[in-house]
């Protein structure tokens, strides 16, 4: 787990597409979950900004090198 995290963070720092895309994907999925979950209104309020940041990040990082 620690090795995975270390590899993940180092590839983020090197601006590699895979890790950044994964981060953007997690943000979009989290944003959509926050938008549609029935538990906390607070989560719903911040859902759009999380989805928007994830989507914009996804568009940008898809142009990074592999």
């Amino acid at each position: 787990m620690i090795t995975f995290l270390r590899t993940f963070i180092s590839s983020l720092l090197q601006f590699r597409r895979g890790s950044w895309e994964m981060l953007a994907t997690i943000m979009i999925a989290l944003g959509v979950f926050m938008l549609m979950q029935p538990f906390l209104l607070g989560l719903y309020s911040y859902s759009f900004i999380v989805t928007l940041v994830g989507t914009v990040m996804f568009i940008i990082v898809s142009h990074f090198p592999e």
Partner: protein
Amino acid sequence: MTVSPIDRVAAKTPSGVARRIKGFSDRTIAWIFVAPTVFLLLAVNIFPLIWTIRLSFTNFRVNRPNNDVEWVGLRNYQRILTDPDVWNTMQATAHFLIWTITLQVLIGFILAFLINKKFKGNDMWTTIIVFPMMLSPAVVGNFWTFLYQPQIGLFNYVIAFFTGADPASFSMIGDVHLAPWAIVIADTWMWTPFVMLICLAGLRSIPDSIYEAAECDRASKWRQFWTITIPMALPFLMLAVLFRGIENFKMFDLVVQLTGGGPGNTTTLTSIDLKREAFEKWRTGYSSAYAVILFVTVFGLASIYVKALNKVKER
């Protein structure tokens, strides 16, 4: 010597024009052909999108075009994202999306698997199963409204036959707990054939030789299903989920015809709520912000889904 139509057109082209065209590079000529399409796309897709984003920061009302338009910043977004009614609408949409996609993919795949077997009357059954998909959503909405009638509806009688309950004791479209399921059932009935057709295309694209090789290796039918059928049909399944997900996120006509968003707001999906805000309350700025939120959500989901689809195809 025969003269081709291209030669005839070339001969009729005025010499001045011909000289000018000859001076163009291939790239310029390609752009001349593509330009009308690009212009149309910009005018029909990109311009309305940019205009909607601009309107979402204003208090513009389309039924009061002479009023001053004020720049309200993020107020419309703030109102939507703190409104418990809109939050409930999102939950109703999530319930509708999750259940329709799950049921349609499951039933659609099972039907495709059965239809893919060689038996007599195969084509006839395919046509019968595909029939609901050919109907208009408005017709399907009306049709299911009659089926769900507590007094005369066939649906209540079928349920009563299996459960022993009184058919008039429950109303699918009048009960707050049953109405969300009523729209799920009607949509599943209508669109499962579509998923079935996509899955059928996937199953028919698997070569028989792979199954024959598996038979030679004494792989059981169960193992063949999990190691050949499912992985090779997976891109098609994912495509079906993508198409149905985007379509159901925008679901409007069938639900309006069936329940009108009621009882209360239990079946008010986001598209119905958006239409009410835009064209009944005429809050154009507010509804533009609402539309932008939905657009970003669908766009984000579609992006990660297309990425996943490409990865599956690469395998």
